[in-house]
């Protein structure tokens, strides 16, 4: 707001004072929100690091195992076993709210299965297929854990960034500009009062 656009009136002064109060209250609340979000972020950070590490490790192992299975059983053999698996791992996805940030909450069941529950025949396949299936079940478990934590983390980070921007905008732009406008109006009003007083004195001096 440029100073020349401001009307130096008492009502404008009251309006601006009200807006400053509101901005300051918003600034304090947003600052608290930012600090709270950062605290939440620190709680998730270590978990996210661990889960990413476990995920990478298990992914590499799973990829190794499937390459090995394809070498031993042939691509067709692995495909045949893969397409005959029965139970799909079930997950339940809920969302929870951390200071206005919606994050997922995932519960998983029946990811790991016994050798007999996998659906493919025991006799037609070798142990490599079992091990590969197990490696991928491990990977799925890691994925389910990492999916929850990483999404939480990403959303928290985005929210921290936007809250930080708002806090900074209020602190360095909105509140200083409003304060400047308030000071300007005060100065102008005082000036006008002095002019008025001077005028009255002049008139009085002329009349006597």
């Amino acid at each position, binding site marked *: 707001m440029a100073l020349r656009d401001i009307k130096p009136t008492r009502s404008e002064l009251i309006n601006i004072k009200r807006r400053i109060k509101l901005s300051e209250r918003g600034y304090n609340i947003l600052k608290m929100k930012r600090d709270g979000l950062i605290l939440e972020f620190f709680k998730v950070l270590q978990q996210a*690091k661990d889960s990413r590490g476990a*995920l990478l490790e298990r992914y590499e192992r799973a990829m190794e195992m499937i390459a090995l299975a394809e070498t031993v059983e042939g691509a067709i053999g692995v495909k045949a076993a893969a397409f005959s698996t029965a139970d*799909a791992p079930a997950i*339940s996805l809920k969302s929870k709210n951390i200071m206005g940030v919606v994050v997922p909450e995932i519960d998983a069941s029946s990811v790991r299965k016994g050798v007999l529950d996998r659906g493919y025949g025991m006799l037609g396949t070798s142990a490599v297929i079992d091990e590969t299936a197990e490696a991928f079940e491990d990977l799925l478990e890691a994925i389910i854990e990492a999916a929850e934590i990483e999404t939480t983390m990403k959303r928290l980070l985005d929210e921290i960034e936007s809250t930080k921007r708002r806090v900074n905008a209020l602190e360095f732009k909105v509140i200083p500009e409003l304060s400047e406008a308030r000071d300007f109006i005060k100065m102008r009003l005082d000036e006008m009062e002095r002019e008025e007083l001077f005028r009255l004195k002049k008139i009085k001096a002329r009349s006597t």
Partner: protein
Amino acid sequence: MEIAVVGTGEFILGFRLAGVRKTYAAETDERLVEHINQVLDDKDVGILVLKGSDMERIPLRLRTSLENSVKPTVIAIGGDEGGLSMRERIKRSVGVDLWK
């Protein structure tokens, strides 16, 4: 709810072995985008698994909506995550590199 996997034939094969039924093979970029959109519309999918290198192949707009999606939750594995990495995100938001 179920897990869905979209990627190349060899990427999805192992997941089928672990019992994931919703696996979609996508060799070209168009098929990849098509399958991802199909999964996003599927109300029964809770987690969408993608390969990190595939994440970089999809258009920016779709990638952003995937990153912000909660239902389904999207996760990229293997290699780069695509888009902004976690380290860069943390640096930008908190101001310190805490991802060490």
